[in-house]
């Protein structure tokens, strides 16, 4: 039962092509990343994904930078998420990559290990990372090379709709000590009180964050340090068993609803449409979910953390800034990245659009200007206890979420038992890594 969408196949073929082309070219063609900043008129290409609001903010940051450096022109190229990766794979393969690249954790290793990204430590003269704490900086390191500087951080959390909970007279236990069973009990109470109109929980199983958390609470990890799949079969089985249980007793919506919503956008989710009382989200998504929902939402700590030996929660870089290894002007590109992550004025414009800033100094500086859900997300990030970040998604595992989604669907629709799904998931993911 292997189903690929046309787009999956497409991005895989282009990326594979990118790999071969890069292997064929080899080496790097760029200039000296620690050299002098040129006084000549040059143009840098800068690419990112996002929606219209982000485009506007980024354009004004570019304008401020080029005002200070009139000889450098920065050309923004922006796309939405899916098109972004198709287009990036093609340009990288064709040796025509943009100089500054907005990178995602899922793809960092794929591009870095194929030699497409610059080790930013070689540009240390222009790009300072002194104000980042070691844990967040480490998220962009592969084999001791800094391939990306995190723009912002986020953590996996639960979002509760307090209006719905009040309406159905359900009280939350203390979220510092609660367990997964407590979460189930709360969910059941809501589903029962609403007569099925509102579900207690919005199901998950489509996001790699939830798997990471589950594995870490069981003392394991999704990937080993060497980049192999390391999650034990029984841990994964219990993860899917939990999802199956909440779907069966009506705590979460019917599988067909869950799967349909998972394929949709943020606005179509249970939390956003006020049809689920508690749902899992990245803390940074609170603002968008809140805007769609219109009701009072609150970030909760993850269940089971108190019982876990080390905190399972971790900082996930919302995205990275990377520089192409083929850039003709790596020093200038690094200078621009430095402006993006270290400059206070730039930070004021960007705000928390790319996650709560990973730069600790900037984070403190903008904290006072944050309001509402942005402030709630930043406060949550500061308050929550985190463990070491998991290993970067290995080269070849970029499609882990597509694989995860397919197996979750199979489990929910009872086409596979959680145990069979675990065996097959581990095998398939490992094969994808081995093939890269």
């Amino acid at each position: 039962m292997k189903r690929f969408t046309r787009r999956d196949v497409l991005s895989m073929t282009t990326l594979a092509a990118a790999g071969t082309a890069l292997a064929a070219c080899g080496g790097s063609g760029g200039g000296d990343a620690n050299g002098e900043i040129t006084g000549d008129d040059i143009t840098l290409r800068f690419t990112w994904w996002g929606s219209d609001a982000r485009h506007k903010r980024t354009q004004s940051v570019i304008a401020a930078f080029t005002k200070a450096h009139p000889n450098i022109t920065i050309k923004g190229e922006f796309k939405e998420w899916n098109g972004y990766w198709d287009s990036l794979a093609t340009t990288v393969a064709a040796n025509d990559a943009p100089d500054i690249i907005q990178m995602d954790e899922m793809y960092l290793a794929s591009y870095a290990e194929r030699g497409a990204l610059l080790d930013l430590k070689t540009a240390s003269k222009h790009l300072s990372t002194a104000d980042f704490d070691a844990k967040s900086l480490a998220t962009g390191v592969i084999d001791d090379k800094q391939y990306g500087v995190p723009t912002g951080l986020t953590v996996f959390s639960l979002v509760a709709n307090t209006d719905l909970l009040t309406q159905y007279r359900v009280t939350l236990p203390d979220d510092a000590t609660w367990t997964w069973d407590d979460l189930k009990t709360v969910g059941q109470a809501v589903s029962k009180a609403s007569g099925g109109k509102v579900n207690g929980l919005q199901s998950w199983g489509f996001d790699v964050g939830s798997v990471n958390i589950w594995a870490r609470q069981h003392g394991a990890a999704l990937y080993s340090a060497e980049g192999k799949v390391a999650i034990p079969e029984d841990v994964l089985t219990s993860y899917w068993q939990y999802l199956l249980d909440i779907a069966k007793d009506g705590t979460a919506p019917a599988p067909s609803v869950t799967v349909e919503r998972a394929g949709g956008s943020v606005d179509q989710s249970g939390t956003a449409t006020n049809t689920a009382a508690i749902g899992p989200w990245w803390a940074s998504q609170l603002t968008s979910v809140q805007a769609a929902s219109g009701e009072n939402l609150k970030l909760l700590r993850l269940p089971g953390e108190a019982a876990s030996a080390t905190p399972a929660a971790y900082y996930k870089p919302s995205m990275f800034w990377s520089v192409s290894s083929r850039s003709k002007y790596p020093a200038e590109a690094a200078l621009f990245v430095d402006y993006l992550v270290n400059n206070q004025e730039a930070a004021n414009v960007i705000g928390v659009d790319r996650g709560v800033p990973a730069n600790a100094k900037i984070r403190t500086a903008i904290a006072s200007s944050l309001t509402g859900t942005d402030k709630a997300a930043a406060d949550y990030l500061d308050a929550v206890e985190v463990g070491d970040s998991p290993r970067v998604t290995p080269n070849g595992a970029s499609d882990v979420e597509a694989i995860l989604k397919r197996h979750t669907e199979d489990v929910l629709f009872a086409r596979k038992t959680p145990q069979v799904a675990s065996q097959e998931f581990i095998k398939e993911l490992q094969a994808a890594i081995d093939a890269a």
Partner: protein
Amino acid sequence: MTDLAIPAARAETTTRIRTTTPLRSVAKHAGLILLALVMLYPVLWMVVSSLRPNEEIFRSPGLALDNLRISNYAEGWNALQSPFGHYLLNSAIVVTGCVLGNLISCSMAAYAFARLEFTAKKVLFAIMLGTVMLPIHVIIVPQYILFSQFGWINTFLPLIVPKFLATDAFFVFLMVQFIRGLPRELDEAARIDGAGHPRIFLRIILPLMVPALATTAIFTFIWTWNDFFSQLIYLTDPEKYTVPVALRSYVDATVSTSWGSMFAMSVVSLLPIFLAFLLGQRFLIKGIATTGIK
């Protein structure tokens, strides 16, 4: 002999029509209308959603409109860097170029394959047909390298120029089939009158193959208007975006999307296609029916 056969055939069809009872016809139509509605539902839902406030869109799967909100159209038109008309114009430029390119080059290539004799004609014809089967993802990287060395990235040239080189093998094949169906006696008569190949092509063949040309024009229009991938790859400057690429700028998977604006502009961008099909439908059917591709 043939004179007798025709009335007989006609009589047969009339009796067959009479045997269909009104009840059966009503049932058949009701069934067809119902199925048509099922097929149309997504489009109707999009049109209705384009008139809804943003937050209501995914809460109501029905077609009933409670709160009319026409401002989605005004907002969507101005939501991106340039007014939406700018992207419509870009698409129009690309589409016009592609249609012209395909009409000129494919008809010439088709004439050569159908009427001229040259070495390795059969092999070349097979190779040309083979290119129909190459998916774009196989050729996109080499093509991109080529165009980037020409310095053509971020212009409309990579989208239009190939069309002037008869690269759409499907249309060449369509026209070859059509020309093969034209009587050779016409060419020979023109040749006796002293016409060479250019004149035979322009004066005899081209006027006769209008249905095939119309089919080519309409299909090129629809396919180019809807093409997303190559336009996404080659156009990097937002000022150069065409309609499909611009529409995607409304969507973002990680934060909320202005769906109302997007649906409104989707409706706007459907209009040209709808009109093209409406006006060209007659030619389309004629063109396909007479080329032997069914």
